[in-house]
């Protein structure tokens, strides 16, 4: 079993080749990309220690993204389920409607520092694309977003946001026409334009530096949560932190500050989409998009197609950092079906005022399943990492309505 290092941020627990636990991650990329990613690594390592840069980041998080996102108890749901206390870290309240806002903003800031004028990113649900487009506009960068044509049609509201912000949305029509193909195409674009373009990979995936930047950016969520928990409980209570997993960027941000805690004290639970679930279905390790990771493949090693109602989860791979958390036994992973997620949305929106997107609806489903089995002293916190408006059409199609 892989052992995690205490008091070392999880993103820094790699060897000199970028591998976590000798097994996950690495830099499987074309020679053309080596120098640009090495330059980016150096720049990032400098910036994360640079007080001026950190101040700038915090300034943007506070004034551009709206500051701390709320943390509150779902009284009705708790009462209804009659078990554990259910709390919501409502990351969807951020300007930008999802955790991707942190990641996109940091990438735009890094792009600025690097002196590059172009920024390119991939997107599935459109949350990263939308936030990157807005950050690029704010910082005067030219932005290209790569998106599968299937996702362009099912996440139309976010596509409109991107275009309105002045980004070019590049439709990707190859393969399954979803996120996996968008990431491939975006990486190809970078291979061809790495001299003037900054690559913003949309999740905690890709070559070492890209997943580091991503998880470093989203860790804002757990910094806030830790403070909010202490304010509310006077200590870190016995917790279960439930988060949906696509690539895994929101979970890494949600868990980052709690990784050193004993798992009996703070349990980390990741929820994948049932037919895009490499971590919870014992998939093999494969190389995808520059890194070794748990990934769905066929026998021949070709990357498998996935199926999920949720565009953000419709991805065969998973962050190498989740591979590390799984193999070290620190986090556990399960999955929920489209149906489970829809039922969770139905119940939550009936009882509470939040409107989760399809992605966090998967996490809510696990919360609803677990809560009745637990004691009142147990605290469940769900990262409500995306706003539901983007899935309004899908919810209406599937449920017949979208709540006010």
């Amino acid at each position: 079993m892989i052992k995690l290092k205490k008091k070392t941020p999880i993103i820094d627990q790699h060897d000199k080749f970028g591998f976590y636990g000798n097994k996950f991650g690495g830099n499987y990329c074309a020679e053309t990309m080596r120098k640009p990613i090495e330059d980016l690594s150096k720049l990032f390592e400098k910036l994360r220690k640079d007080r001026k840069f950190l101040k700038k980041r915090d300034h943007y998080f506070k004034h551009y993204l709206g500051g701390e996102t709320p943390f509150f108890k779902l009284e009705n749901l708790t009462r209804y389920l009659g078990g554990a206390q259910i709390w919501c870290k409502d990351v969807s309240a951020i300007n930008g409607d999802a955790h991707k806002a942190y990641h996109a903003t940091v990438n735009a800031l890094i792009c600025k520092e690097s002196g590059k004028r172009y920024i390119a990113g991939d997107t599935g649900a459109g949350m990263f694309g939308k936030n990157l487009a807005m950050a690029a506009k704010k910082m005067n960068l030219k932005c290209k977003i790569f998106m599968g044509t299937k996702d362009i049609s099912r996440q139309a509201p976010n596509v409109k946001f991107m275009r309105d912000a002045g980004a070019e949305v590049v439709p990707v029509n190859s393969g399954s026409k979803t996120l996996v193909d968008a990431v491939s195409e975006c990486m190809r674009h970078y291979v061809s334009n790495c001299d003037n373009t900054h690559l913003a990979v949309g999740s905690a995936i890709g070559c070492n530096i890209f997943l580091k930047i991503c998880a470093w950016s989203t860790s804002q969520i757990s910094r806030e949560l830790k403070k909010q928990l202490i304010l509310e409980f006077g200590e870190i209570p016995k917790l279960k932190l439930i988060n949906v997993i696509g690539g895994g960027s929101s979970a890494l941000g949600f868990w980052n500050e709690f990784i050193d805690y004993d798992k009996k004290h703070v349990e980390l639970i990741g929820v994948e989409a049932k037919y895009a679930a490499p971590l919870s279905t014992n998939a093999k390790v494969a190389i995808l998009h520059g890194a070794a990771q748990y990934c769905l493949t066929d026998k021949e090693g070709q990357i498998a197609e996935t199926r999920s109602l949720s565009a953000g989860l419709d991805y065969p791979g998973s962050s190498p950092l989740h591979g590390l958390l799984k193999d070290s036994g620190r986090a556990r992973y399960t999955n929920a079906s489209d149906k489970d997620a829809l039922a969770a949305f139905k119940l939550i929106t009936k009882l509470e005022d939040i409107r989760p997107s399809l992605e966090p609806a998967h996490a809510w489903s696990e919360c609803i399943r677990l809560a009745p089995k637990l004691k009142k002293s147990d605290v469940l916190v769900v990262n409500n990492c995306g706003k539901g408006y983007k899935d309004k059409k899908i919810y209406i199609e599937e449920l017949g309505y979208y709540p006010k």
Partner: protein
Amino acid sequence: MKNSINNAFKVAKKENRPALISYTVCGDNTKDKSLQILNSISRDLDIAEWGIPHNCPTADGKDIQNSSYRALQNGIRLNDIFKLVKRFKKTKPSKPIILMGYYQMIFNYGEKKFIQKCKVSGVDGLIVVDLSFPDNKNFAKLCKKNSICFVQLIAPTTTVKRMKEIIKNSHEMIYMISTISTTGSALKYSIKRIIKNYNAIKKIKPSKNVVIGFGITEKTISNLKSADGLVVGSAICREITRSLKDRQNPVTNVSKIVRKLKNKII
């Protein structure tokens, strides 16, 4: 056959021309057709590269993506590729063949098993697009042990310091990527700049065979004649696509193109 790659360069040098190297995708558009194409063009080739199709290629342009897609649609598997290499080598034992692909295909098959299979089928060299230096050190060693040439790549973005290390760790052949791009796009740099990069590599170790690839077409090939070797890939794959679309025989069309390319460099 040992050192057949070196021999191929020697023959070309004797004739005072660069070695001509093709890239096609194994199994495009069917297993047999791809072997027929390779057999037919090999009379004008010095070295043949055969692509192992993968469905998430992060460094290939549209043309090679299309070829890979067709091959996969027709059900090509790694074991088929080894069988086809064996068949090719049976009729052309001295023609070097290099397999080119993404590391996932090798990783999934198992490195050792993959190399063993290469050896018994007659593969002379390997190019692994996304296994760059220094991550490829162990794999390259394993290749060498089994008399397989591991082809290192050098890009326009590679620094001189890195270049020196890569060359030090290289085998008989080095692949120079002409321009910052995926396969098959137009040359972004002037011929002068490409030759300058090429000379920088040669200066470090004149005895290494350095080939130039990416963006080589009928139009550009004669300007780069001074290189040890030139790789044409996308232009050939494009011709296969066109032939299939026009319901023509890709074997004859591709052979014509390769003949034309050869004529431009002699």
